[in-house]
């Protein structure tokens, strides 16, 4: 259940941000989570309330923006949608597809006051 650590890391990044620009409360935390990555949105939500309790992010709303999978197929030289991390190219069937999106795990935005 590394989602617990991931949310702890999110809280640390929020604390960093507070040192840079002062705010007293976080209303919303938005994460960008790739569908082909290793973090499960449901597990992130499950951990969020517990982990943020007593921190600067206590009471904040968690929004998760899912990022769809995309790859670069070196056989047909184009970006193709990827439904599995190691799937073949849906256009030409080639197996030389390098994932270019879908592995994201990013704190993208905060709403603060």
């Amino acid at each position, binding site marked *: *259940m*590394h989602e*617990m*650590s*991931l949310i*702890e*890391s*999110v*809280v*640390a*990044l929020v*604390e*960093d*941000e*507070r*040192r840079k*620009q*002062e*705010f*007293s409360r976080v*209303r919303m935390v938005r*994460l960008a989570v790739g569908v082909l990555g*290793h*973090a499960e949105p449901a597990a992130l939500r499950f951990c969020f309330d517990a982990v943020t309790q*007593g*921190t*600067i992010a*206590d009471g904040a709303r968690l929004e998760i923006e899912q990022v769809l999978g995309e790859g670069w197929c070196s056989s047909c030289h184009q970006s193709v949608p990827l439904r599995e*991390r*190691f799937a073949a190219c849906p256009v030409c069937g080639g*197996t030389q597809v390098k994932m270019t999106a879908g592995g994201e*795990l*990013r*704190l*993208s*935005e*905060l*709403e*603060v*006051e």
Partner: protein
Amino acid sequence: MCTVCGCGTAVSTKGPGSENLIGTHAHDHGQDHSHAHSHDHHHHDHAEGPLDFGKGIAGVNLSGMSQERTIRIERDILSKNDAFAHANRFRLRNADIFALNFVSSPGSGKTSLLVRTINDLRDRWPVAVIEGDQQTSRDAERIRATGAPAVQINTGKGCHLDAHMVSHALDRLSLAPGSLLFIENVGNLVCPAAFDLGEAHKVVVLSVTEGEDKPLKYPDMFAASDLMLLTKVDLLPYLEFDVGACLAAALRVNPRIKVLTISSRTGEGLAAFYAWIAARTAAMIEPPGLPA
């Protein structure tokens, strides 16, 4: 409390090479980090260090600042771990230490492999071990029985080692230049894949008593590893395990992965593993393009 950065890591003091690191870094110390650093503590940019978890709202309440606003951040959630990993890697390279991060499910034979490897290689390289488990020092004790120094990290509820824990473990090992450092991660085929520790390579250990489709079921770990060791191959005559199908599965998720079949009990295949280590350490010490 940790004397390095003040974090919640408790360290027992049984003498060099026999310490345990305990705790999940539940940092509960003050936020100002005003303690002095009298030793070589390589990595702590304290503004960056993940030492503020769970600290709570630290008395900052700006009554005049109630205006709601949106802040773009766009930072990788693992950026703090990656910063520690980067510092570990830099530190290890500077000290000519070749570090491998062994990852696998529980029971794949990681510790037996390390014990055998240490006994076989001790005359060629000094070897030290960082052991990660949720509880107990059993694995570190097995390693110490070989004479090699070992630091045990207990992660408590944690399901993986992170780069910060490893940086503390490094502080407690005195490693000679040219040493091998084996990091045995927590037995878990999922979470450790996401956490770079600063190692030269991740080595995934899979035993033939597990399913040959493990690489497809847990692709992240096999994708993150440079070498796969298929262990316990002395048991193959008693099992219905398709080695070819397993290799095909591993290569599907990671076309660049190198696979070796070994037995820590009989020694089969270990020469190839040692040759792989020798080639990689040589490549690290004498990068191509630089004079020897």
